[in-house]
């Protein structure tokens, strides 16, 4: 017995009831919790951005670029937890070269590339093209070259060309909305289609994933929007913030209703797996499900935002409550992913017992690695804010 297996021997004493002998170790750990979490943030942030663009919710204008850049920053990292959790990370490209099309996982690479290259990058490029051209004329030295490269050689900024930019950008956003739904609904399907696992296998899974993605993405943009204004010492646009809060409330209520429906359905049907899932929910998942996911992550935000809809409060109190709400929601959705991914592996497929899960601090599946993938998108976002600064853009001429 090498020290290699020591943690497994330790785990042996924590097994409750009977599990198949191969089930002692959780196969998907914290990194696979992060994967749907980060992808959800991307999809949600994009949907908020498209509310402004496609559905002409003009009050959200100040968040449009922030939302797009946030989506990009997180999307660039989205595959990292996936690849780093693989047993053979260097073989990851096989999934793109020789995809096995009956696998729900095989298509993700393509949807990801589509979303990154066709939707997000193009939309941002069209949105920024005029600024890129102007920056490439104004700046000196290396930055001049960088912006020149970013224009991809398209330097025509006549009103006619700009009109085309706007039209094409709009078209991409229209394509982008179903793409965002596809991106995250698909992630839900990866779990929802595993018939061997009754905690995952529900037709509602993709839908729940989409709505929870909207919830988390809106909360993320709300948080970043407030932080940005705080750091830049600017007075925040309260109308915009109130509007985000309203959308967040709607998304929260829909998400809560769907998750509630899923649970009610499970309880009422009470299939073969009901007893073990009942024990799971009331045992191992008590805190993460009832307290973090539904309590602090959903009910409290719904109550706060609902209160602010009904009763007028001053701007300062609203800001504080919005900040708390956005953080609670972000934590709550993290635990929603946790409860799905980790919760679904805690019980044995024999339905006769439970294994245990202990989060490690270091190692490829540890907190350290996970923190990197959570902090990295924020660093990328800072870089994007510097490179494609939403605050140094050139005001549009003639207000087209």
């Amino acid at each position: 017995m090498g020290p290699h297996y020591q943690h497994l021997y330790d785990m042996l004493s924590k097994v409750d009831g009977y599990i198949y002998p191969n089930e002692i170790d959780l196969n998907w750990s914290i990194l696979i919790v992060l994967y749907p979490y980060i992808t959800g943030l991307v999809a949600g942030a994009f949907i908020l951005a498209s509310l402004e663009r496609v559905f002409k919710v003009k009050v959200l204008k100040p968040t449009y670029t922030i939302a797009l850049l946030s989506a990009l920053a997180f999307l660039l990292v989205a595959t990292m937890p996936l690849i780093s959790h693989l047993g053979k990370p260097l073989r990851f490209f096989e999934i793109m070269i020789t995809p096995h099309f009956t696998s729900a996982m095989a298509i993700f690479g393509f949807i990801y590339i589509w979303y990154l290259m066709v939707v997000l990058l193009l939309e941002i490029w069209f949105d920024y093209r005029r600024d890129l051209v102007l920056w490439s004329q104004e700046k000196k030295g290396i930055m001049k070259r960088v912006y020149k490269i970013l224009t991809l050689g398209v330097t025509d900024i006549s009103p006619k060309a700009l009109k085309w930019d706007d039209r094409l950008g709009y078209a991409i956003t229209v394509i982008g909305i179903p793409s965002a739904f596809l991106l995250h609904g698909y992630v839900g399907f990866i779990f929802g289609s595993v018939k061997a696992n009754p905690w995952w296998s529900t037709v509602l899974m993709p839908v729940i994933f989409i709505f929870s993605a909207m919830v988390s993405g809106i909360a993320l943009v709300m948080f970043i929007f407030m932080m940005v204004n705080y750091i830049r010492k600017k007075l925040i646009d309260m109308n915009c913030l109130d509007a985000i809060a309203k959308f967040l409330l709607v998304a929260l209520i829909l998400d809560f209703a769907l998750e509630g429906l899923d649970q009610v359905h499970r309880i009422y049907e009470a299939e073969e797996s009901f007893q073990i899932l009942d024990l799971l929910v009331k045992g191992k998942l008590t805190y993460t499900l009832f307290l973090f996911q539904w309590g602090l992550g959903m009910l409290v935000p719904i109550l706060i935002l609902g209160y602010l809809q009904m009763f007028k409060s001053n701007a300062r109190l609203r800001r504080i409550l919005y900040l708390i709400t956005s953080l609670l929601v972000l934590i709550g959705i993290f635990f929603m992913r946790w409860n799905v991914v980790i919760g679904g592996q805690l019980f044995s497929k024999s339905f006769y017992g439970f294994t245990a899960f202990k989060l490690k601090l270091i190692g490829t599946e540890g907190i350290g690695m996970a923190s990197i993938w959570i902090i990295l998108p924020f660093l990328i976002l800072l870089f994007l804010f510097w490179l494609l600064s939403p605050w140094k853009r050139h005001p549009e001429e003639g207000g087209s």
Partner: protein
Amino acid sequence: MANNQVKSRRRFLTDAALLTGGIFVASGLNPFGKLLYAVERKNPKGPWYGMGIDLEKCIGCGRCADACKTENDVPREPFFFRTWVEQYTILNDGSVKITSPNGGIDGFKQMYPDEEIFKSFFVPKMCNHCENSPCVQVCPVGATYESPEGIALLDSSYCIGCRYCVQACPYGCRYIHPTRKVVDKCTMCYHRITKGLLPACVEVCPKGAKIFGDLNDPKSDLVKFKKEYSWQVLKPHMNTDPKVFYNGLRAEVR
């Protein structure tokens, strides 16, 4: 009269047209018929392997699990098994107790006094080599595949270690090899059966409780086993069509 003739001719023409159209549509749909009517001989020119397990005969010695580890270089630690044996003890109060210490390799001890026990028996488990394998379905790169003989195999030089198949297997038959970092599973000793030998677990069973055979061969021991006993498969509601058939399987076994 003439009017009637016209009517009947018209009816004849519409009926003929409907019939032709129906045949045409049915032929178009024929390939999809496979989805509806499953019975069809697999691998008609070669063998189609399966396994019978007679629980009435199993004494829980665990030699099958031990031989499997030796034959297939499975890590000796008690967390990695291609095959293992479970001990079921049903007490008089109806509660079900299951153990599989070290997969049964070191044998079993009955922890309950005889007077409390309603029934006790052993269940050897292994990959069911399902006809509709969820593991083959979900592998994103096709590293897990079905051999022409119906054996679910794995190309370990191709597996990326994503573990989706481990999640998809309803029977817990797959594990991640601790040093190779790819999936490992029962191959029904493919390297032996293709040379005409028996799988290691079958070879060592002292009671002949495991019956390996070709489902396409009417004279094989397995086909005889299936005729003789009212066999069952594990988790039939999963619709995975396992090719491991149990005699004496009780409802408690999952």
